[in-house]
């Protein structure tokens, strides 16, 4: 690492706590952000000379607060700024603030900071952009790149999001237990959204968006550190790790999506898998199941299969069954049908998704999956119709290419059959 890399790392890791505390103090997002920015600039000047402070977050909160207060005073009375050295000598002040802000205080600061980003008035894309900007501290340029929009457009999106948040009433008092758990589940959902923004990308965009998945994992880890005993947060963390563990195997050299069955499993990240499995293990001890834990358990069964044929599809079918009860959704049923097709055959799977046709009539995966079952059953003409519909609904060129592969196979089969018939 270079000389300043440790400062960058320390600033990044202290950011959520510091901005969260500054927000509680100033009750204004822009002021809190600017205060943190100014404190970071001073850290870059002071830390290389004086070494890192014992508690970087406390240092940044203290300095950020002082600088912002000075700014406010100066703009009111044109008072002179104190010398830099006077601010940098923080040994006593740091002690004091570290005592005053105990662990639980920090915890609610960070949760609040995350929570205001998932305000229900904000559309999902704004929630994500705001969280990446404010909590993770990514630059507008970095976020714009990940979302494939111009910097100006992203700047506008974030400004708009901030304006909505400023208008909304964000409660600053310490939340009660029920409120806290509601906040926790909104924040968990937002982190999963961020992850999926990165995870669902493919082709040219996959590389640009991969950092989103990594950032989501970092945020999930932050959340889990604050709420060590929450099985659903363990489940979320495990789910993200187990899915992300497959990242290197999910695309071929041309950027085309490689399906689970065809992935080179030696490319899976065993460290992440080990951590994911350890977290599910911890979560299950609580006997308080939830959607993230179940999805993580499904991902774990895939991760534990050395070869695709070792996959325990019967167990996956059961887990999806439990997920259907908790979170009834046609997409969950569709996913369950894939396990059913492996465990009990294509006919049972097709029967399971037949009733979903109406609700998923614009859903790419429904027609892709349906076409595959029909093809397995030898109902090639119906399969072709389903695949054509899937291509029309494909979101990415990789998705369309994948379906075209099926169609080509159908074509070859029917030509072979035609060939046999004429012989």
């Amino acid at each position, binding site marked *: 690492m270079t000389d300043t890399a440790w400062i960058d790392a320390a600033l990044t890791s202290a950011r959520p706590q510091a901005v969260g505390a500054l927000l509680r103090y100033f009750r204004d997002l822009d002021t809190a952000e600017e205060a943190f920015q100014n404190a970071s600039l001073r850290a870059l000047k002071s830390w290389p000379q004086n070494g890192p402070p014992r508690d970087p977050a406390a240092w940044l909160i203290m300095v950020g607060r002082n600088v912002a207060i000075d700014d406010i005073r100066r703009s009111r009375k044109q008072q002179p700024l104190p010398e830099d050295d006077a601010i940098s000598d923080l040994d006593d002040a740091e002690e004091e603030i570290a005592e005053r802000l105990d662990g639980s205080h920090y915890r609610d600061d960070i949760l609040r900071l995350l929570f205001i980003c998932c305000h229900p008035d904000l559309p999902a894309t704004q929630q994500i952009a705001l969280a990446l900007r404010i909590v993770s501290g990514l630059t507008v340029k970095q976020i714009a790149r990940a979302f494939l929009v111009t910097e100006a457009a992203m700047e506008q999106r974030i400004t708009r999001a901030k304006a909505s948040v400023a208008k909304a009433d964000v409660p600053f008092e310490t939340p009660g237990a029920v409120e806290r758990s509601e906040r926790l589940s909104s924040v968990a959902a937002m982190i999963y959204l961020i992850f999926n923004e990165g995870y669902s990308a493919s082709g040219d965009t996959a590389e640009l968006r991969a950092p989103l998945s990594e950032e989501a994992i970092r945020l999930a880890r932050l959340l889990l550190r604050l709420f060590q005993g929450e099985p659903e947060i363990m489940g979320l963390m495990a789910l993200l790790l187990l899915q992300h563990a497959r990242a290197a195997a999910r695309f071929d050299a041309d950027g085309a999506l490689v399906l689970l069955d065809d992935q080179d499993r030696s490319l899976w990240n065993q460290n992440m898998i080990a951590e994911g499995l350890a977290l599910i293990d*911890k979560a299950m001890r609580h006997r308080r199941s939830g959607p993230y834990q179940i999805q993580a358990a499904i991902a774990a069964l895939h991760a534990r299969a050395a070869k695709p044929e070792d996959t325990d599809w019967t167990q996956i079918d059961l887990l999806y069954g439990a997920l259907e009860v908790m979170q009834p959704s046609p997409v969950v049923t569709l996913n369950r049908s894939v396990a059913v097709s492996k465990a009990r055959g294509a006919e049972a799977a097709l029967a399971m998704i037949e009733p979903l046709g109406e609700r998923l009539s614009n859903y790419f995966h429904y027609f892709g999956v349906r076409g595959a079952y029909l093809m397995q059953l030898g109902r090639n003409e119906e399969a072709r119709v389903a695949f054509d519909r899937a291509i029309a609904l494909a979101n990415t060129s990789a998705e369309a290419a994948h379906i075209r592969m099926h169609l080509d196979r159908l074509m070859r089969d029917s030509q072979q059959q035609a060939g046999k018939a004429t012989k």
Partner: protein
Amino acid sequence: MLYAILCYHDEDVVGSWSREQDAAVMEKLAVVQDKLVKQGRLGPVARLLPTTAATTLRKENPPVVIDGPYAETKEQLLGFYLVDCNNLDDALGVARKLGEANPGGAYEIRPVGVFMPGSAKGSTEGSVKA
């Protein structure tokens, strides 16, 4: 004498390393470790998963299981080395070399009282039955 070199660092900072940064540090550490291996001085080495994966059993009566690490500290126990050294100076020398390869945080150097090499095969895979 066998010494344990216990590695403490802020896991947030270590966790914010990019894959490339992480790999670069591991590579530099491998150089130091290889030298010790060739000298026949390196015992078991472990890098621990983050403290979020930790569970604590408090040996009260009855024992209490708590999610999370034993101690909530600014810097966390992230791993350890066991190294055969002549004396404390020698052990500090090894720790300095490791520290040059992996700056930041602190090493606690503790002489080992009893050592049993054990018989674990060393798989890091979990054993979850979903």
